[in-house]
């Protein structure tokens, strides 16, 4: 046995351990002995040793073959074709291949496909150059479907479905973008266009006298979205009002909000503190902006718009 394995390994070029494993599997599947398989691979005579294990294959049906016996290859093929519904030509091809692979007669394979008893054949069909070794002769004529419990495929690995796809999201109620969202956007767009057109027809953009470096207007005001900051400048040191508050609170603080507010809730009732803080921030900014825009006059001193007039040039045209 050891020697046979070594010979087979040498002949095939595979490691001995693998040759032994696969010979065992092959022998089991075909119902022959391991030695026979190995000898076949090694190309030597089968050792006489050890009585070849009786093949578990069904006894050859040679004895009783009333119907199948008289059938020719073509008849068998067409019978098989009729049964399986596949073209005879294809069946013939596959039966030949199967017969060759298993070392049995083509007739036997076809007969099995057709579901008729296996015909007796004189010489094992020429189409099947049975496995070289001798014991094959004993086992071969009997068509050897894999014995019970033997599988010809191997399990390589188990891939759990979870590893490939994870279903994370729950189904949500969705609608087609077209026409539902596109229509809503179109309406918003038209409304905005109309609003902007009307605004532009009734109010003219301001244009004062040409720029003059020698004539500082009183008051001098920044663009309206900076007037809150300018207002702050009249309370605090410029380092605080012009740098610390807009830079640190305005930009960095605003950007950091998602990392400060760790509360995952989005329902307003569950995030009252955050809403309160942001609302304070908005109100503060709006208040400062409104004071800076409408309650500051010459010298940026406090005025009441209803007594001293409005010093807000952006809306000059509208105010006049």
């Amino acid at each position, binding site marked *: 046995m050891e020697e046979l394995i070594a010979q087979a390994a040498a002949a095939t070029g595979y490691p001995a351990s693998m040759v032994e494993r696969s010979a065992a599997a092959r022998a089991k599947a075909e119902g022959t002995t391991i030695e026979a398989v190995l000898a076949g691979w090694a190309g030597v005579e089968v050792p006489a040793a050890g009585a070849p294990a009786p093949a578990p294959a069904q006894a050859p049906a040679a004895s009783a073959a009333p119907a199948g016996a008289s059938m020719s290859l073509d008849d068998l093929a067409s019978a098989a074709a009729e049964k399986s519904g596949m073209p005879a030509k294809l069946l013939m091809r596959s039966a030949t291949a199967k017969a060759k692979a298993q070392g049995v007669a083509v007739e036997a394979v076809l007969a099995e496909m057709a579901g008729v008893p296996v015909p007796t054949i004189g010489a094992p069909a020429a189409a099947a150059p049975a496995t070289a070794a001798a014991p094959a002769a004993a086992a071969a004529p009997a068509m050897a479907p894999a014995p019970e419990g033997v599988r010809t495929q191997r399990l390589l690995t188990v891939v759990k479905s979870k590893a490939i796809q994870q279903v994370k999201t729950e189904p949500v*109620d*969705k*609608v*087609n*973008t*077209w*026409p*539902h*969202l*596109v229509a*809503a*956007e179109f*309406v*918003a*767009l038209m409304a*905005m*266009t109309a609003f*902007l*057109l009307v*605004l*532009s*027809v009734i*109010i*003219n*953009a*301001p*244009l*004062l*006298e*040409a*720029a*003059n*470096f020698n*004539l*500082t*207007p009183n008051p*001098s*005001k*920044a*663009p*309206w*979205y*900076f007037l809150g*900051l*300018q207002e702050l400048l009249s309370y605090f040191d*410029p*380092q605080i009002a*012009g740098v610390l508050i807009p*830079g640190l609170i305005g*930009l960095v603080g*605003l*950007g950091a*909000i*998602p990392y400060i507010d760790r509360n995952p809730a*989005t329902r*307003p009732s569950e995030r009252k503190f*955050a*809403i309160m803080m*942001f609302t304070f921030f908005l109100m503060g900014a709006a208040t400062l902006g409104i004071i800076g825009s409408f309650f500051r006059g010459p010298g940026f001193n406090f005025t009441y718009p209803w007594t001293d007039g409005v010093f807000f040039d*952006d809306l000059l045209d509208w105010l006049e």
Partner: protein
Amino acid sequence: MADDKAGLLERVRESVTTAPSKMRKSQFWESVFRPGSPFRAGYTDSPRGRSYVIMNNVLYHLHPVKVKRHGVRLSYTLCLGGLSFFLFIVLTITGIFLMFYYTPSEERAYADIEALATSVTFGTLIRNMHRWGAHLMVLTVFLHMSRVFYHGAYKPPREFNWIIGVVLLLLTLLLSFTGYLLPWDQLALWAITVGSNMGAFAPVIGNQVSYVLLAGVQISGATLLRFYVLHVLFLPFVIVIFMAVHFWRVRKDGGISGPL
């Protein structure tokens, strides 16, 4: 004779009524409108047809095929982000119009703006639209930010899109600020003077930044050119890139947030 006339009329009527459907089947028409377009022959108003309208269309760059039902309600986003974007487009169009008539030099700038009212067709209207549109955009961006806050829409996984939003807010303000100087009137000059004086207070870098932005220690003709280039080229270029990332993240972060 009368029969001939009736026959001719019939033929004319037929070719007029079939012309649209023939046109829709022409090679030219089909090359313009991709399969699935509602303008193509054979469009059916089915769920499949509706999906194709978006999927086979340039709109697919902006919208997914389906959106959450609550996100479509105008009352959820108030369309504020979309309107900010739309105003940006309006500003680009009107801005290009204004560029035809404007020279960013100390000598010409003010006169060019004045001339819009007197010698350019629709000059005043376009200038007004550009100006009020800019103010409105600052407003809609600000309101959009507030709506995002009140919906808690900056929470994971949308934190970074909020930061991109803050950059967009800053860029919007800078666009408005640089544009403010361009008319070169007293309002422009002194508002920018006050504004940039505030910036110069920044520790360490304040003076350097102000020097680079103003192209000197004080506002001058060089500042005008610098603000002009920033306003018509640099800042729009940068803001478009940030907007693209912003919209892309809205999609990738799972679409619009909510429902609450």
